[in-house]
């Protein structure tokens, strides 16, 4: 069964450093999402992406964040200058259509020191 994959599973970085989180969505999916879950809290929407552009973003998704689909398979989330409060689990999700169920990857745990 096809699944969403994410790398790395755990990333440790120093405050102020740039990080890139990578996702490979399910191959025939066209809608892509990033969500964040700070430890012990609920899952929060960051951004949705379709047709090579952002379709919606939350208040959390400020200028420090960017997303890209550099090739036909990868979908990346970049944080330019990480802050301590960026420490969280980051989930990528994809769907075949805007209204399709969103299937989640296993997540990347980001720790900012």
């Amino acid at each position, binding site marked *: 069964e096809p699944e969403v994959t994410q790398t790395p599973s755990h990333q440790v970085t120093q405050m102020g450093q740039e990080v890139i989180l990578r996702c490979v969505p399910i191959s025939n999916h066209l809608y892509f999402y990033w969500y964040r879950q700070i430890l012990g809290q609920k899952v929060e929407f960051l951004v949705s992406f379709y047709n090579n552009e952002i379709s919606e973003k939350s208040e959390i998704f400020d200028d420090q964040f960017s997303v890209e689909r550099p090739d036909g398979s990868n979908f990346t989330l970049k944080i330019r200058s990480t802050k301590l409060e960026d420490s969280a689990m980051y989930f990528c999700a994809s769907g075949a259509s805007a*209204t399709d169920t969103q*299937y989640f990857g296993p997540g990347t745990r980001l720790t900012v020191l």
Partner: protein
Amino acid sequence: AQTVTQSQPEMSVQEAETVTLSCTYDTSESDYYLFWYKQPPSRQMILVIRQEAYKQQNATENRFSVNFQKAAKSFSLKISDSQLGDAAMYFCAYRRGGSGGSNYKLTFGKGTLLTVNP
């Protein structure tokens, strides 16, 4: 804005028994979808069940079923014959339906931690 409320931070159940997890939501839309996701200790988000608001019939998936009360904006999850592997955090989530526009994000509740006792 849509909100999802899970009023039970923690629940426990004996193995082989039945447990119900509660979820209420607030929306002004008539077309939407509701989901239950399971998050085991590995922290992966796994879809458990999905309900379309326009369907009157409650969704079922093997031991998992929902009680969808549209007028009351209630969407509870029933787990029958609970198994040790059901122990996880369970999140209720809402998403608008329809076509057009771009706002198809999932809005999650805070979750219910389910413990299954042997």
